[in-house]
């Protein structure tokens, strides 16, 4: 099969500070920056801490625990890798930041808001590994 036939995962913004995060995702242990001075976590990654402007940040693995803040279901296809219908969710990571992702597997029957979820790593058809979430039945 030629590479042209593989559906590409939409472009990942890959700035100077995004790269280490995606490398940690590739290693299936997602890390985010934590400020060594004030302890603030940040997402997306950046050059310094927005909490205290310290430039001294360390990469720390996230727990993978999160709570759904909102969700949507796309009924129109915008991207080759995402035939409709598909969902996107906004989650609040236990460490503080909000992240946009997708809910894998079983879906809640009523509102999704407030559901506890946990991080899973999904390999896309072109080999890109994405951090996604599934319902966390253990911590209910």
């Amino acid at each position, binding site marked *: 099969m030629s590479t042209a036939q593989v559906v590409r*995962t*939409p*472009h*990942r*913004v890959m700035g100077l500070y995004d790269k280490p995060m995606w490398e940690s995702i590739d290693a299936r242990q997602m890390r985010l920056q934590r400020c060594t001075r004030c302890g603030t976590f940040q*997402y*997306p990654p950046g050059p310094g801490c*927005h*909490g*205290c402007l310290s430039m001294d940040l360390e990469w720390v693995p996230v727990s993978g625990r999160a709570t759904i*803040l*909102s*969700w*949507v*279901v*796309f*009924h*129109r296809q*915008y*991207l080759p*890798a*995402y035939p409709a219908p*598909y969902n*996107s969710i*906004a989650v609040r990571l236990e460490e503080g*930041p*909000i*992240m*946009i*992702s*997708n809910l894998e597997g079983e879906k809640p029957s009523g*509102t999704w*808001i407030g559901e506890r979820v946990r991080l899973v790593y999904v390999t896309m058809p072109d080999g*890109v590994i*994405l951090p*996604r979430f599934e319902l966390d039945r253990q911590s209910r």
Partner: protein
Amino acid sequence: MTSAAETKQAGAGRHPNPRLRRSAAVVGIGHSDWVRDWKRTRAGEKPTDSCGYGMEAFANALKDADIDRSMIDGLIVGPTTAYERMGELLGINPRWGDQADAVLSVLQAVMAVESGFADVVALVYGNDQRSVGTQYGGPEAMGGSAFLSYVYHAPWGLTSQGALYALTLQAYKHAHGFTERDLGEVAVAQRGWSSLNPNAIMRERITVDDYMASRYVCEPLHLFDYCLINDGGVALIIAEASIARKISSRPVYIEAAGRSDLNHGATSLEPRLTDFYLPAQQAVARQVFDMAGMGPKDMDVFQVYDSFSVHVPLALEGYGYCAVGEAGKFLRESGVGPGGKMPTNTSGGHLSETYMQGWAHQIECVRQVRGECGDRQVENCRNVHYSSDVAGKAVSIIYSR
């Protein structure tokens, strides 16, 4: 979440200088014939380009103001055309110039006039977004260089602007018991207005049942919650107040203006998802209503930047037209359409009149204050409040007689 820097801002609690109040007035308005060009672009024609639409609008604004082009000494060009090229085509060598979006163009014109950098400022916008197929969602989503949130979440399939507002709506519904039928009232009301507006592209009235039966694009948003995408141009001429009175027998004053931004957590959508821009809107409400010495009760018409209908309930709450959490009840029981308690987006807005990225809202404000809106005219209209909340930048203007 408030950062430490914000709580000790030097200007905390301070408002824009009251000298700005009524220091400038709109003396001319113009626009292209977007109803004609909608039909032409739908038929595959290319009536003109972005600069061409701006030129047509500017010529109409000069005619409306009944002044010669040589009087213009300031030029502000919208974000969709190059400043220099537009100035070249319009034949203007200003002593002051800039480039900005709709609402900030008006603010910049007021600041230029008040500070003496210019006396008569032309504001010109043209956009051929329909005929060139500008994408606001998908892999080529426009605006990504300015707003990281438009492109950062693409790997998870979230690129469209509609999706950002759908996420906001879902969280807002949950927080306040707001329903899809409540939101449908916005699209229905604006169609009610546009049915009375010969300049509107979509004029067929709809019901809440029609709205509920329409397809989802990004659930919970329906098709009718989305703005149109069409070609067109808009221009305004804003003059220093004493000059405005000489030029025009019916100047429309910029009574007050204010701005407040929420950048904290912007890429991951925190201000949209957790408090729906409320702190910024409330800060701006204090600025503009204090400067004008007025309140929401004094406003005869409300104009809201409505790329998506969701803006309207959030703005009704944020600016104090109803209590926080009660926009659903307000939309159902008080109403924002013809005959409603708070006439909102009386042209039909982006949803039904034309998508001129806030520019056409400015000329609707002027027309309502002048009293030249025909069948959709709000009786004895003295004050119109315009509000824009794009990507966490809350900006308001009050236009007055």
